[in-house]
């Protein structure tokens, strides 16, 4: 048993030997758990009345429901963030349509696996740029990939 164990250790050392084509550097690690509410921008743009009204709804949802309920959306960015960002990047009408489409996709509780790439915390990566109807902005990432969207 001991011998088998030693052979296993030695063989794994040789099989997965270091092949460092890139020099190792110092890596800064943070073990702090991320709280999505810290990444939220609660500010309201007073210059645009329509956006201010929609942002107020989003802020109210974040403060009263989402922050209390916890990190439950399976997507990154979350559906509410997606809504805010899509309105900011397009316009109120297109942003609202993008949000309804996203919400429909979020309803699918079985089919998401294998359809989207993931971010390191396990959420499905589904950025706004894919849905603005501008083909040049679409950067396709195949589903098994884990990407860093920071």
């Amino acid at each position, binding site marked *: 048993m001991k011998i088998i164990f030693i052979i296993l250790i030695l063989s794994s050392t040789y099989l997965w030997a270091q092949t460092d084509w890139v020099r190792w550097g110092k890596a800064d690690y943070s073990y702090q758990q991320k709280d999505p509410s810290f990444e939220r921008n609660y500010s309201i743009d007073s210059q645009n009345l329509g956006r201010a009204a929609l942002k107020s709804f989003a802020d109210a949802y974040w403060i009263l429901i989402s922050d209390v309920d916890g990190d439950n959306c399976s997507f990154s960015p979350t559906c509410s963030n997606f809504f805010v960002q899509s309105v900011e990047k397009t316009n109120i009408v297109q942003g609202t349509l993008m949000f*309804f489409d996203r919400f*429909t996709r979020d309803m699918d509780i079985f089919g998401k696996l294998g359809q989207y790439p993931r971010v390191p915390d396990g959420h499905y990566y589904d950025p706004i740029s894919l849905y603005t109807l501008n083909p040049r902005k679409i950067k396709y990432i195949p589903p098994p990939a884990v990407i860093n969207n920071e």
Partner: protein
Amino acid sequence: MKNLIIYLFLLTSFSFSQNKIPVRNINLFSPLNIKIFGDYLFCQKDYLRAIGEYQHYLTMASNDTVEFKIALAYSEMSDFSKAAEKFAAIRSNSPFYSDAEMELMKSLFQAGDFFEFRKNFQNVIGKNSTAFSKTISLYNFSFLLTNNPLPAEQEFLGAFPKEDLAKVKNFYEWKENPPEKSPVTAAILSAIIPGAGKFYTHKYADGIWAFIASVGFAYLSYDNFHAKHYFRGWLFGGLAAGFYAGNVYGAAASAQIYNAKIHFDFVSDLKSFLDARNYFLPKFKFCK
């Protein structure tokens, strides 16, 4: 038994202990030994360290093979722009000049710099028949990865060996008529039957949920209006309209994502094919 093992261990330790006298006579950092160590690292595919040794060697001696192997090492590490820079620096009197010309074009191709690739190919035409005959296949392939108009099929396929013709013809036909989905068709289908556009773009689960959300809320709206619950009727009606319009919009977006996916798969297939053929260039056997 234990004692015997201990004696044997001690005996071998003393008998074969390190003898420093011969080591003193070997200069481990002589140019030749540095090159030998660099060659060893190169063959172990430890390219980064091999480059370090080779560059150290080149400060003491000049060697065409080593210069070429540095460029090749960068290429193996997928640092194509650096590899191109090193291949371009190989002098015309080097025995590797012709190979470097071809490898330079391969690196430019792999880096996706098709403008520079074609410029180099124009220089090769008529000047170096070996480089021309080896890289014309790559030149033709560059049309499959850019949006430039494709050459005529016969002219395009003429550059490839018989065993690759079927596969290359498939690539050519795909590029000529990519099996894309129309965003307009997807939107119209979803406008007629909610979710149909998502089915068209192979997003079946999304299509089913789009249908359920649109039709479900429309039914709730109808039912509440029927029961004279007007507030709820308008509320569900608004949601039904939102999900319906979102489903039409989402179908068009889904078609665009589908098109991006098939183009991504096409490029991946093409690169795998070229990798398997070593980009139609000869392989170098520097290692046994």
